[in-house]
């Protein structure tokens, strides 16, 4: 065989990150760095009460400050947009508070000034009078509280399963997903063992190091929005809807994102900057501070009541799950979290009788929405802690108990969807093999006690969704991929380029990926929920295949053998007489999906693919202080085939370490709805010194037959098992079981004191 035609496989190659050099040398473009002539900077005045009617807003002192252009309130917004409410699930969130405020920190007015410091100073001079209303903060209380955050539910048309909530009054429940399979009560009545527990998770924040930033630039008859978003196509749709404009008059573009983690999905501050720019007829920029991010979006606090029936031989015969999701004052995408994750609440186990009630609940707290894992880490925390408690109570090895009950290929998930390409058992096998689970373990001595734990979780992909892609091959054989998948640090541009190169038979380095710009990049639902490698991956593959068909035809027409970019270049030159022309390949993909039945919650095809992640932990507890040191963290996922093994590895560790922060230290602490620690000096995210002593990541050698080149998403799988694996290891070390996150030294020490009969009194 001719050596020239042996091409390096692009799939499975750890291609270095294409933007790496630009980022480390400070040359990469970020929205924060854009400077536009005539720009006005907006700074917000926020509510200091949790719930109340707005009586008056006094902006006179702010307007009087030299350099202030204008001060805008919700009523001013209404002059531009009669119904200024946005949101993907419910049209419930006003651009600026109208008539009512619903949480401490809600934007009430904005000062526009040429100098951001002047705007900030003037915003501090605004005062507001409110008629205070009683507020509700706890999700379980809010489910039945007479205090209602919204007078009437206003579902958006986007999701059919929310339609029945239209016009509903007197409730805080924004979504009530139910699953009914078999008869759980009969099982509880007759089972050998029944276990019931309640678990809690706390409200936390994404803390992307690039806070929210958006810049709206009004043109003659259109508007350009430069924004740090994970969903440019949705921003365009929602802004066009709010303004009553056609989509093509709204241009949304991004640059590199300094992290997203789900915070920057759907719309956040974009409606505000657009409205302000159109009112002021000047470009308006808003860059939030790290502190302000805490008031935009966070991760649901949850209460999860779980009850299982177990047979005498250690098989789970029934499980009942009641999950309360604290959605905060505005639904954002919360109802999708409580449904799409809610239906997996029973865990990765074969359970014949299952019942799930998963409810998204409004409260007077900052909104909660998508957060790396999309609700799954909260659920796994509960069901894998519960699973461990059961195993220990029945004196069955926790690994063996899981293997006895785990879903296997072809088994039916409680929703009725058969498991395909879901390597649950192999994940458990690999974790336990790496940990030497069957080997003796050093349990420590004195005040330093060691333990180990494992946990495994499952996630469904958000569905149905659609991706479009366009590949433009130039006359020299190099290619540009036009694609709306946002590279926010996860390395998607590099991986997508590899797919194009694999199909075209060129090298990945010869493919460039554009930043999203809705004027030129085709539609994509958004970069969230680990959907991009599967959905956009298919669209990119199809677009590249479409381009290749045309290239092969061009080569045939010009009598050149199709081999690589050199032969492509030759064919173009021969056809057009010079280096000229383009070939456009287009592709799109929509996932297969069958909606869940409203009454039973079941579906034969509830997800296009399953994500699986597990973690093993070895740790040491300082029994005098409750301080935990993670000695070893083993993360194993089924991500299908790894397109770029190095990118996959960093996605696994990044996800796991992020969840480690959510497990050990992060917590937004509220006092009557007021956040007491909106600062990185008091809100602890993990730093380099908090890393586990050793960390190992593994993506199974697996293949997703329905995925592009056998691949599927991997951005979240590393989060799933971390929290319960740590709690299970703590229990293993010191015999203390914790039911609420975070597992701070104080919480652990409190557990130690309680266990020895000397509880700490407050």
């Amino acid at each position, binding site marked *: 065989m001719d050596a020239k035609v042996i091409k390096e496989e692009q799939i499975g190659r750890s291609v270095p990150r294409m933007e790496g050099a630009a980022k480390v040398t400070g040359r990469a473009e970020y929205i924060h760095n854009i400077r536009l002539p005539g720009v006005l900077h907006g700074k917000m005045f926020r509510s200091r009460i949790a719930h109340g009617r707005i009586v008056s807003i006094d902006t006179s002192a702010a307007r009087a400050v030299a350099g202030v252009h204008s001060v805008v309130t919700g009523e001013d917004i209404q002059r531009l947009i009669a119904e200024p409410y946005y949101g993907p699930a419910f049209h419930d969130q006003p651009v600026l508070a109208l008539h009512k405020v619903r949480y401490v920190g809600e934007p009430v007015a904005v000062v526009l000034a040429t100098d951001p410091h002047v705007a900030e100073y003037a915003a501090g001079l605004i005062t507001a009078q409110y008629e205070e209303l009683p507020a509700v903060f706890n999700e379980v209380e809010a489910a039945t509280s007479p205090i209602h955050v919204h007078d009437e539910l206003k579902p958006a048309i986007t999701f059919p399963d929310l339609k029945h909530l239209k016009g509903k009054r007197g409730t805080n429940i924004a979504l009530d997903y139910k699953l009914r399979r078999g008869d759980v009560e009969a099982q509880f009545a007759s089972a050998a063992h029944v276990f019931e527990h309640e678990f809690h998770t706390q409200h936390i924040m994404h803390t992307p190091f690039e806070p929210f930033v958006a810049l709206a630039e009004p043109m003659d008859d259109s508007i350009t929005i430069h924004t740090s978003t994970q969903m440019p196509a949705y921003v365009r749709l929602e802004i066009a809807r709010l303004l009553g404009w056609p989509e093509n008059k709204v241009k949304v573009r991004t640059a590199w994102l300094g992290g997203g983690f789900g915070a920057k999905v759907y719309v956040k501050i974009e409606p505000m900057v657009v409205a302000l720019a159109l009112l002021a007829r000047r470009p308006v920029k808003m860059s939030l501070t790290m502190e302000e991010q805490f008031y935009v979006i966070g991760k649901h606090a949850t209460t999860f009541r779980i009850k299982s029936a177990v047979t005498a031989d250690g098989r789970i015969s029934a499980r009942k799950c009641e999950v309360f999701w604290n959605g905060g004052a505005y639904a954002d995408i919360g109802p999708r979290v409580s449904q799409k994750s809610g239906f997996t609440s029973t865990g990765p186990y074969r359970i014949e009788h299952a019942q799930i009630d998963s409810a998204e609940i409004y409260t007077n707290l900052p909104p909660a929405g998508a957060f790396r894992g999309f609700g799954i880490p909260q659920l796994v925390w509960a069901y894998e802690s519960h699973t461990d408690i059961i195993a220990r109570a029945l004196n069955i090895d926790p690994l063996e108990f899981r293997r006895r009950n785990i879903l296997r290929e072809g088994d039916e998930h409680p929703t009725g969807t058969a498991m395909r390409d879901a390597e649950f058992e192999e994940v458990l096998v690999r974790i336990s093999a790496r940990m030497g689970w069957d080997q003796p373990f050093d349990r420590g001595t004195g005040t330093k006690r060691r333990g180990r734990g494992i946990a495994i979780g499952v996630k469904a992909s958000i569905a149905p969704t659609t991706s479009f892609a366009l590949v433009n091959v130039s006359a020299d054989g190099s290619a540009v991929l036009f694609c709306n998948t946002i590279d926010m640090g996860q390395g998607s541009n590099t991986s997508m380029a590899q797919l194009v190169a694999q199909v075209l038979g060129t090298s990945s380095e010869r493919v460039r990926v554009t930043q999203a710009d809705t004027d030129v990049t085709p539609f994509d639902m958004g970069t969230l929920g680990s959907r991009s490698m599967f959905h956009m991956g298919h669209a990119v593959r199809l677009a590249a295949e479409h381009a290749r068909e045309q290239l092969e035809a061009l080569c045939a027409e010009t009598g050149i053998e199709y081999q690589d970019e050199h032969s492509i270049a030759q064919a173009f030159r021969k056809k057009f007489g010079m280096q000229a022309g383009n070939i456009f390949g287009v592709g799109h993909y929509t996932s297969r999906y069958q909606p869940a039945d409203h009454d039973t919650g079941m579906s034969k095809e509830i997800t296009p693919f399953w994500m699986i992640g597990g973690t093993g932990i070895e740790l040491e507890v300082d029994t*005098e*202080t409750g301080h935990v040191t993670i000695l070893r963290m083993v993360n194993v996922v089924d991500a299908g085939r790894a397109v770029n093994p190095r990118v996959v590895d960093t996605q696994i560790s990044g996800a796991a370490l992020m969840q480690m922060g959510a497990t050990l*230290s992060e917590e937004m602490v509220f006092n009557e709805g007021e956040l007491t620690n909106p600062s990185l*000096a008091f809100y*602890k995210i993990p730093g380099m010194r908090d890393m586990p002593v050793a960390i190992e990541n593994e993506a199974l050698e697996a293949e997703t037959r329905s995925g592009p080149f056998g691949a599927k998403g991997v951005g979240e799988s590393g989060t799933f098992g971390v929290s319960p694996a740590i709690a299970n290891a703590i229990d293993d070390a010191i015999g203390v079981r914790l039911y609420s996150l975070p597992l701070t030294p104080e919480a652990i*020490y*409190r557990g130690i004191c309680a266990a020895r009969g000397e509880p*700490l009194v*407050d």
Partner: protein
Amino acid sequence: MYEFSYVKPASLDEAAQLLANHDDAKPLSGGMTLIPTLKQRLAQPSHLIDIAALTELRGIEVTAGQLIIGAATRHIEVATSMTVRTALPALAALASTIGDPQVRNRGTLGGSVANNDPNADYPAAVLALGATVHTQRRAIAADDFFQGVFTTAIEEGELITRIAFPLPTRAAYAKFPHPASGFAMTGVFVAETGGRVRVAVTGAGPGVFRWREAEAALADRFAAESIEALVVDPSGLNADIHAPAEYRANLMKVLASRALRAILNSSEGAVA
């Protein structure tokens, strides 16, 4: 931040003069507390008098059984100085645990002591070692210097110039840092100097304080067991979003014991 004038005097006298001439002037050293305070508009000084580079406030030396450190000496300098590490290793070790590298590279001894943050590390060392705080006007004993949360004996226009630490026979500091800020959730400094034992606690109460019960117990028997036998009353200790008083009470005992063990297990008396 509000507008202010930045002034960099050439001498201590000039600095003092500037402070005397402007009612709302503030001295600036490392700025670790002052700059964030200005950013949050919690202070509106007319002038910032930058004293960080004044030669009168710098230098580390051992004379007449005392370690003398200039007020503008940065934490990193104390942590890495061979003079400090030889004469008073517990103090060098304490300095190496303050905040993070950025803080240690900017923050100063005098700034920390003058600010008297209830969670700061240095006040525990100054009080436990019975150090003397020198200003351009007088010498103040540690016992008279610290007067509660963010309050000291320092008067208007008075500047700390140096701190003189008597060299202890043995000493150690043990600390449980706040995971985010690095401040002491609780920190305990144990020192035996000239046959007398002093124990100072930071982070646990409203300002650094001497733990007299621990001192008495250690005077009887200099051992961790003496601490472990004590009962700490949590009333009066700090309770906030970071930890309740009961947890801090526990930390006092645990950390004092660890400081003791570090002293007794190490000939150098380094930090636990």
